[in-house]
């Protein structure tokens, strides 16, 4: 391998894959480092309904491997647990080239213009660290458009609440399913506006790959027709095609390498190799970009202390790892008289953004939509009415009669960040490489729970207006929020005193160290976050390319 890199990008997920592409196409020499491996439907598409990134009952389908990669999780009662990647408290996303973008459902939302200015619109609730984004929707809009066209989104201009758009989507929207018309009619009765949600899936052949074949197991698995547009089959391929990007898979960034003056010079890597041979080496570069996800990017900064920054790079103000957030998902199920579900993936067909803002008495809100096709085992675990016995013919007959009659409405609540929700380095527990592991602690801000309750009511009312026989769904309990939508741990900002990076993701005090992933989000929007992570990925790496 050649060693003269302009930039090292750590993590080949949503933002990291984009950074590799933008930098390499701008003529820079890039090393893309990914702890996971190349995966596809052929080598990782096995449909284990109990071990996947949607239901992790006894394992997962990408990584990290169950043994050797623990985290410490402090639950809401303050009890400490050692957790493995498939355990709830781990807050795993995925570990593979593409990360979650290989497996996701691919809901492709732009945040609402007011999602970028929550503090200005609502004020700062007590105990929260709520801030505005340092950039506006208008500033991000052209980059959203790039993400929509270069990664590939199917959709239509039906969202009457969205910020201004200058261009449509490259592909037509998803088809409806039997429940769609009923939910649309129910929404119309209530005066709620609806449309087909945008999605990062080929609804028609595009980019040399086929269209979705509507299999019955979408989210959580690689796609049988390679119709899901992730970074692994789009921008990372483009990056490699330039000849200027090298990718090292099965390779862990152990720490950020610094010189005697504390200046970043590269990355210390552990190449896991075959078997258990671990090869450690330092690779130098002019710039380092962390795109390891909100938990692991913070971990890397914390694990790279120097004499001048003894608590971690960029962490002299004790901000790295704080404000960890994700999305609470209030969910309501409704039983219909008719068969309304047909087990065709992806399964999301109708959404409203009417409740993203302007809800009486609460901060922000959520996009609400129906959901992805449910595996039977997931339906059993999540969708049964609370009063149904879990044994006997009653349970069996409910499954037999109603698997196709139950739909759901749910949505990601825009959370109010809390500084105590955080990633720190545990000082006792080490992973298989001898690295101290992330310790996750904190409980979501109470204002978030109030918004959750309000959105739950909206979802319930929508289902009830749509002709359901009955509805059910429990309100979620207070806990740490992160998971697959983890964000916020290295927030960007204009003010060095209250942010970890500048508005382009450059770590304050470090001219050549950047973060580009969901860690930067000051708040995480009332929508699934990945299109925003991608848009920011394009913007921030374009900026870095110009600087190098």
């Amino acid at each position, binding site marked *: 391998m050649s060693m003269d890199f302009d930039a090292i990008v750590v993590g080949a997920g949503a933002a990291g894959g984009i950074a590799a592409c933008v930098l390499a196409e701008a003529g820079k020499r890039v090393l893309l480092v990914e702890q996971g491996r190349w995966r596809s439907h052929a080598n990782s598409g096995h449909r284990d*309904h109990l071990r996947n990134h949607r239901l992790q009952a*006894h394992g997962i389908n990408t990584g990290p491997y169950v043994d050797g990669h623990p985290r410490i999780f402090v639950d809401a009662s303050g009890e400490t647990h050692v957790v493995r990647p498939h355990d709830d408290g781990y807050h795993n996303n995925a570990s593979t080239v593409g990360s979650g973008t290989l497996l996701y459902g691919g809901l492709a939302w732009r945040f609402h213009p007011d999602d970028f200015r929550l503090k200005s619109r609502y004020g700062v609730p007590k105990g929260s660290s709520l801030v505005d984004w340092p950039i506006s929707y208008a500033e991000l809009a052209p980059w959203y458009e790039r993400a929509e066209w270069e990664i590939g989104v199917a959709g239509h201009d039906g969202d009457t609440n969205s910020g201004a758009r200058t261009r449509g989507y490259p592909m037509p929207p998803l088809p409806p399913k039997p429940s769609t018309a009923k939910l649309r009619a129910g929404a119309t009765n209530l005066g709620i506006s609806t449309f087909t949600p945008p999605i990062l899936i080929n609804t028609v052949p595009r980019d040399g790959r086929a269209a979705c074949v509507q299999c019955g197991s979408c989210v959580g698995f690689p796609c049988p027709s390679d119709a899901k547009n992730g970074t692994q089959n789009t921008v990372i391929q483009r990056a490699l095609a330039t000849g200027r990007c090298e990718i090292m898979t099965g390779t862990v960034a152990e720490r950020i390498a610094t010189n005697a003056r504390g200046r970043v010079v590269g990355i210390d890597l552990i190449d896991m190799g075959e078997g258990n041979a671990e090869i450690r080496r330092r690779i130098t570069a002019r710039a380092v970009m962390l795109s390891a996800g909100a938990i692991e990017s913070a971990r890397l900064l914390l694990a790279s202390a120097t004499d001048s920054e003894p608590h971690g790079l960029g962490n002299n103000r004790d901000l790295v790892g704080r404000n960890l957030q994700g999305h609470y998902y209030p969910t309501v199920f409704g039983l219909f008289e008719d068969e309304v579900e047909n087990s065709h993936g992806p399964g999301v067909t109708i959404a409203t953004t009417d409740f993203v803002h302007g809800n009486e008495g609460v901060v922000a809100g959520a996009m609400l939509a129906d959901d992805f096709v449910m595996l039977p085992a997931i339906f059993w675990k999540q969708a049964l009415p609370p009063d149904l016995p879990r044994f006997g013919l009653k349970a069996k007959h409910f499954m037999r009669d109603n698997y196709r009659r139950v739909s759901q409405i749910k949505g990601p609540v825009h959370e109010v960040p809390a500084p105590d929700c955080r990633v720190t380095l545990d000082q006792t527990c080490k992973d298989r490489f001898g690295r101290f592991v992330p310790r996750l602690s904190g409980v979501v801000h109470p204002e978030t729970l109030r918004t959750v309750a309000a959105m739950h009511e909206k979802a319930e009312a929508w289902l009830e207006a749509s002709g359901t026989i009955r509805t059910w769904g429990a309100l979620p309990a207070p806990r740490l929020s992160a998971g697959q939508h983890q964000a916020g741990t290295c927030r960007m900002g204009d003010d060095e005193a209250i942010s970890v990076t500048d508005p382009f993701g450059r770590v304050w005090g470090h001219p050549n160290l950047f973060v580009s992933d969901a860690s930067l989000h000051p708040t995480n929007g009332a929508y699934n976050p990945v299109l925003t992570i991608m848009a920011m990925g394009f913007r921030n790496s374009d900026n870095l390319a110009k600087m190098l």
Partner: protein
Amino acid sequence: MPSATFLALLDRIIPVDEWPSATTSGVDRFILALWQSGADGSAGSAAAGLEELDKLASHAGYASFADAPEITQDTLLEQVAATVWFRQLCELAAEGYYANPGNGANPDAISWHMIGYKHGLPEGPDGPPANRSEARMGKLWA
């Protein structure tokens, strides 16, 4: 050798009707495999629970739970319905019964025919084969 009580209980958790019962569908083997591999830690509490169930049956005048008529079994079962071990066993039974056939139960994905779930995959209900070097305890399997 699974105990008669274990098998009888599983077939009250998922009884036969026009579709197979739990044990006809291989759910007993699925659960025993999880217990043997250590992937699920509820074997001990289930064993204690099954003993308890046999005691309840003997109080009711039967040699064991398995010897009681189904209607009595269902009444006995109500007495343990709220216990943790029983709820965990119901959960495991449903996992086996409704998961893909590759997990060891649900042959021919018969429960999917029952509920109307269509896998829609070119390779069949399990999709492509699992990667054997990774489908192992400690790697992708817990």
